[in-house]
C-alpha cells in the first residue's frame, strides 16, 4: 500500500479483525499438540490466567493464548509468549490436567521455528 496515496485520502483500509479459519496457518497448533497432547484438553476456564504470576504484571493470558493458537492466530503471541516465567502455578490449578508449562515452552519453540521457516 502506498502511504502517499493513503495520505491523499487521509485514511487507509482497515485490516479485518476477523479470524479466517480457512486461511489462517495452524502449524503452531499442530506442533504444540503433537508434543503436548494435553493441549487438546483446555476448555478455557481461565484458571491459569487467574493464578498467573506474570499475568499480575502484564496482559499475559494463557487462556486466550491457547484459543488463538487453536485458531492459528499467532502474530499477537510472538511477544506475549516470552512473558511467561514458567513458574508452573497454572499447571497446578488446571482442572483438565493440561501441561500448561510445556504448552508455553512448545509454543515459544514453535514460533521460533516458524520465524526461521523450519516449521
Amino acid at each position, binding site marked *: 500500500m502506498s502511504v502517499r496515496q493513503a495520505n491523499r485520502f487521509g485514511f487507509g483500509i482497515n485490516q479485518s479483525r476477523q479470524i479466517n479459519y480457512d486461511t489462517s496457518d495452524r502449524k503452531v497448533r499442530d506442533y504444540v499438540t503433537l*508434543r*503436548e*497432547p*494435553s493441549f487438546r484438553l483446555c476448555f478455557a476456564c481461565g484458571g491459569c490466567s487467574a*493464578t498467573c*504470576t*506474570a499475568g*499480575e*504484571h*502484564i496482559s499475559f493470558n494463557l487462556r486466550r493464548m491457547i484459543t488463538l493458537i487453536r485458531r492459528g492466530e499467532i502474530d499477537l503471541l510472538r511477544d506475549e509468549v*516470552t*512473558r511467561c*516465567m*514458567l*513458574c*508452573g*502455578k497454572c*499447571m*497446578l*490449578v488446571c482442572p483438565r*490436567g493440561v*501441561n500448561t*508449562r*510445556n504448552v508455553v*515452552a512448545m509454543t515459544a*519453540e514453535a514460533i*521460533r*521455528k516458524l520465524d526461521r521457516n523450519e516449521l
Partner: protein
Amino acid sequence: MSSEIFVWPFNLGLYFILIYSVVRSTVWFRNLSRPDKLRLQRGFFGIPFMQSIKEIFMESLLHRRIFKKNFVLGYMHMSLAFGWFLLIVFGTIEADFFGEKHLNPPSHAIFFRAFNPDHGAVGLARAYTHLMDFLLAFILSGLLLAVIKRFIPSMMGMKKTTKHTWSDRTALLSLWLIFPSRLLAESFTCGTYGSGGFLTGNLGAALASFLPAAEIAPWFWWLYSLALGTFFFLLPVTRYFHIPIELLLIFMRNSGITTGDKSSSYTEVQTHACSSCGVCIGVCQMSYAAGINDIQSAYFIKGLRSDRDIAAITANCLMCGRCEEACPVGIELGPMRLIERRQGERPDTAKRFLERYSLTGRRSTIERESTQSYGYLVREEAESADVLFFAGCMTHLTPSVISAMKKIMESAGVRYRFMDEQGGVCCGRPLMLAGRDREARELINHNSDIIWKSGARILVTSCPICYKIFRESYYLEARVMHHSEFINLLIEEGSLRLGYLHRKVVYHDPCELGRGSGIYEEPRAVISYVAELQAVPEEGTMSLCCGGSLGNLTLSSGKRALIAADAARSLTMSSPDELITACPLCKKTFGQATGTRVSDIAELVAAALPKPVKKSRGRPARVTTKSLNHG
C-alpha cells in the same frame, strides 16, 4: 618371532587406540578453559594426583562403589578390570623377566606363550605360570557372570539394563572372545609343548590328547589377536570407551574441574566416561513408577555421544537427582542435562556433521534473541526489614503454609516483611530448569534489587525451588534460609515455645532441598522436636521425588500421579498419622496421591504452638540479631 604376522591385528588396534587417545586428550585439553587447564596442571603435581591414583585403583579397578551396591555385579566388574590389569602387569613382568630381552614391545607380553611355548615348565617360572593361569581363571569367572547378566539381568539383581547398539554388540563379542581365545590358544600351545599352569597345562594336555594341538594353536592365537585388535578399534565408538576415559575423568575431577553451565571438554569427558551400566535406570522413578523407559540418564548420555536430536529426552526428566547420586562413575548428570536444555534446539544435521568433525568438535549454541522478556516488571520501593519472607509462587497455592509461617514468626517475635505478599515475581529457578538462563537472570536481578534494598539480613523462603536458586545464583548479603532451617534456628535459640504433638509422622525430603541443597538435618531436628519422626525406606540422599517436579517439562499429569502414588506408598508404609514435607509443590502433589494427611513442616510446627497464639512478650528483634551474630 616378534615378526609373527598374527600379532598385527593387535598391534594395529593398540597403536590406533593409543594415538587416538592421545589426540583426543590433547584436543580436550586444548579446549579446556584457562582456569580448568591450570587446575589440571596443578592436579598432576600434588595431592590430587595421589587421590586420583587411589580412586582409579578403588573405583576403576576394584569397583568399590558397585561392590557396595551389588556384590555380584561388583565382582564381575572387578574380575574383568582388576584381573585384566593384573594379567597385563604380571604378563609384562613375565615377558621382561623371562623373555629374551628387556623392554619388549607390548605384543611380547600379550602373546608371551606363543613366542615362548615351552616356558614355565619348572621352578619359579612354573609357579609364575600358575599365577598367570589363576588370573586368567579369575577373569573368566567374571566373564561368565557378564554373559549371564547380558541374557538374564534379573539374576544379577538388575531391574533394567541398557540397550546396545550394533557397535556395542560387536565390541562386546570381541571382548568376550579375548579371554576364552587366549585360554584356548595358550592351552593348545601348552598341550603341544607340555608346558603351562594348572589351567592351560591341564586343559592343553587334555585337548592335545585327541586334537592336533600344534595345528590348532595358531588359529586361536589369530583369534586372540583379532579379538583384541577389533576391540581396540571399536573402542572409541562404543560404550567401552568409558574404560580409558574414566581414568581421565578421575584426574580432572580430582583437580577440581566441575561441569559448570556450558558444554566443555569436561562434559565431553563425562559423556564418554559413562559405561551405560544402567544403574540410573534402576533408580529412576519415571521408569519403575511411571513406566517411561527411554529417557534415563544412560540414554541421555548415549544420545549426546551419538549426537542425535535428544530434545525430548532432555526435557523429560524430573531433575530429582537420584541417578546422579547413584552413578558409579560420578557423572554430574543434572548439570549435564541443564546444559543441554540451555542449548535449546540443535543445529540441523548438516551443520551438526560439520561441527562434529571440525577440529574443536564443539557444538555451537543457537543464539537466543537478546530482547528483554520481563521489561514490564516495575522496580518496587523496598521497605527495610531484618527478615524478609519470600513465600514463592507455589506457596501461594498452599495458603495454609503461609499462615503457619506467619503464626510461627509472630509467636517468635520475628520482625519480618512479607516480600511477595501481593504475589511477587518468580525466583527464576523454573526458567533455569527449562534451560532459559538469560530470562532467569532478568528475574534474579529484579528480586535481588528488592532484597538488597530491604537491607534484610535473613531471607527466609518456604519453597525449596526458590531456596536453591537464592543460594546458588543470587548474589546477596542476606543469609538465605529455608523455613525449616529458620524454624530450627528459632527453636535452638529458644525463641519458640512449642508443645509436643503426639503424632507419628514421616518426613519427605524435597529434591531441591535435600539432594539439591544438602539440607537433611534441620527439618528432621525440627520435626523430632514436636512429633515422633519415623524412618522411611528411602531417605536422605536417595529420598524419592514426589513427581510434581518443575524439572520436567513434558511429563503428563497422569504419569506424575503414578510417581506420586508410588512415592506416597513408600513413604506411608508405616501408616504414619501425617506425611510431612517442606515444599509446597510436594505438599500439593502428595495431597492428591495419598489418604494420609500431608502437611508442611511449618504447619506441623504451627500446630505445636501454644494456643491461643499470643503476641510476643517483649522479645522483639532479639531473635534475629542474635542469630545474625553467629550466623
